[in-house]
């Protein structure tokens, strides 16, 4: 026991008194929860927690008699946490700001508290995107279904990027991919493929049918019926 420690530490407050005070404070914070009024519960809970924390830090950790350098070390860490909270909370805590709306938060909140708002009308609208919050855009979310769905234009605009305009699997995106996208003109492709497997591949992505997961899930753009029409269109490409 090097003697440096002995001379710096003569101060031992009456630990019993502090311990009893802590237990009483704990009881107060628990009782506070029955007050029913939210802000009283908060004041009780966090105020008491702060008092208890200072009691433990001052007396049990002997911060009261510690050199000031140690207080600076802990103080800087706490100040940095306040700074972190100040810089981050405008983006995370709030669900809207200048020029941006956090639809996901709004949707989660809307879904989460059904009793406050009237429950969402009927089946979730076939909005092209599940993250489209009902609250954000009141207009009937126009799915591509509104305009007559033509599998050919959808193939040309969406699928051609990787499968190529004629479906040979040589689109500009194909150069990037390994394994290569499916080649619908090759009869060998069709030998072991059923329509339902193709629909699943289209709507839930390649990985869902054991194929390359580079094929994204287009289910958010194409409904069941549309996927069937797409598969029908793919048949017309066979042997071209």
């Amino acid at each position, binding site marked *: 026991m090097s003697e440096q420690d002995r001379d710096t530490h003569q101060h031992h407050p009456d630990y019993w008194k502090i311990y009893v005070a802590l237990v009483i404070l704990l009881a107060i914070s628990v009782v506070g929860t029955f007050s029913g009024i939210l802000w009283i519960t908060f004041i009780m809970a966090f105020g008491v927690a702060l008092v208890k924390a200072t009691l433990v830090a001052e007396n049990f950790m002997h911060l009261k008699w510690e050199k000031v*350098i140690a207080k600076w070390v802990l103080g800087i860490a706490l100040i940095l946490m306040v700074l972190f909270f100040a*810089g981050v909370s405008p*983006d995370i805590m709030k669900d809207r700001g200048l020029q*941006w709306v956090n639809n*996901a938060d709004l949707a989660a909140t809307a879904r989460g508290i059904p009793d406050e708002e009237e429950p969402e009308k009927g089946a979730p609208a076939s909005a092209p995107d599940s993250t489209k919050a009902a609250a954000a855009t009141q207009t009937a979310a126009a799915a591509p279904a509104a305009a007559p769905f033509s599998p050919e234009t959808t193939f040309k605009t969406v699928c051609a990027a990787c499968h190529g305009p004629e479906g040979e699997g040589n689109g500009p995106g194909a*150069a*990037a991919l*390994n394994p290569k996208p499916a080649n619908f003109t090759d009869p060998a492709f069709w030998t072991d493929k059923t329509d339902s497997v193709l629909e699943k591949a289209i709507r839930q992505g390649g990985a869902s049918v054991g194929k390359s997961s580079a094929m994204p899930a287009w289910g958010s753009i194409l409904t069941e019926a549309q996927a069937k029409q797409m598969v029908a269109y793919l048949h017309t490409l066979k042997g071209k």
Partner: protein
Amino acid sequence: MAQASAATVHAHEHGSHEHKELHGVLKYLWSTDHKVIAMQYLFTGMFMAMVGGFLAYVFRMQLAFPGKSVPLFGYVSPGRYNALITAHGSIMIFWVAMPVLIAAFGNFLIPLMIGADDMVFPRLNRLSYQVFLLSVIVILSSLFVKGGGFGGAWTAYPPLSANAKYNLTPLGSSMWLMAVALEFVAFLLGGINFITTLMNARAPGMKAYDIPMLPWMVVLASIMFMLSVGPLIAGAIMLFFDQNLGTGFYDPARGGDPILWQHLFWFFGHPEVYVVLLPAVGIVLEVIATFARKKLFGYKTLLYTAAATAVLSFFVWAHHQFIAGIDPRMANIFTVTTLIISIPIAEMCFVIIATLYGGNIRLSTPMLWALAFMGEFLIGGVTGIFLGASGADIYLHETYFVLAHFHYTFFPIAIIGTFAGFTYWFPKMFGKMLNDTLGKIHFWGTIIPFNFIFIPLFILGLEGQQRRIYDFQNFPELQHLQPIRILATISLVVMLLFQFVFFFNVIRTWIKGPKAPKNPWHSNTLEWTVESPPPHGNWPPDQMPKVYRGPYEYNHPDREDDYWPQNIPPEREPTPSPAR
């Protein structure tokens, strides 16, 4: 530290240092001597530098000659390209810059420069290297697992990094995260050791302003690292749970928020770049003071500007996220703080340049590296202002301008600063003198090609070429820039080839280099008062050094030699030495 008790506690130095000497290979693997641990970090860091350099060679070849098979590697698919750039970024920062600059030089020099026989916690020091070695194994093996290495860039933004469905590297991403977390643990353990050693274990008589610059800077860096890495460790735990337990911390559809990770990452990210900058500045200051034979221009100014940079670095993090979806009003605050932090850094550069005034500059290899650090780092610092100004960052964000900017700061730090320190302390570390002409060939062979890599990349950045694209043939507006990319790649290959001059010089010196004297550069600091290489325990227990003056008393009027080592007692009544 600032108000260290004036009369350092002269606890009589009990606690001797004899213990059974390890022998054979065990001496190098299981030793707790701070010098052996420093060598372990140094060689691991240099090996990882070679790995990082090779990765850079591979993807730069792919950029210059897209689609062709790269010699010594093979065909670079987009997935592999992403893994290469992620590994290059992560390895160069976490496994080259930090271990070599903080752990290797810090471990070797802090005890020697403050007159201590070892770090205060030798076994904790050994444990920190072992955890670091484990992180090296995990990151290297993560490149060879099924699905390939993690491909989400060293910033690992979720949801790309949080969901295997998006990044297609289920094993690679978790192993990358585990390796980074282990590296954080290693540097937390090491950091506590460095900070406590400097605060408590100083030689008797060494007051706060007698400590040389390098220990100050390495410890300041360790404090910044320790206080900034906390939130990211919490973020890493959350990301690890997202990757493996299917929680939704960063998945917006399930109540999470991807912007939270960006804030957690960059709250650590920006202090991190100053964590690697300060030790490099410390090395450069030691070398410049010694070879300019001149007292540092305003020791306290340097210390206060370094402290100011350290504090301000916690206020600027969101300048990495101006257009990342944060609230535009926050961007104004962070623009102001970012430009404010450029002031202490600018003053630090002015003070370093002013140190050369009135000097007697000898241009040997370490001095060339230190001066090159200053010359190149000015370009890096200056181009940072373009990116700190939020309006200009709208166009320049995620372009090659950013890439060239941070290579003009990281390269001087991790490569030029390291070579300055390595060539300067090589005689002390290995007991032999490096060949100076080979050193100069290696110097010019690295500096000139370096500028020919990254000045062209500035031009590419201004043309609007954005980062992390494996093949620019898909972008009609960028196809005509191919010749610039080929020039950058060729300069990189030339620079990498010149590194063999360095390896040849080091190995030849190991085998039959001339024996190094105790103080080859006639420097003042305490590490030059022991033999080279220093024995275990540095000084005999009864001859621990005492300090009588500051570390930079060169060309002092009261002395005929142009240097005055710290531990030489003043012959007669010490004239009131002028203000430090």
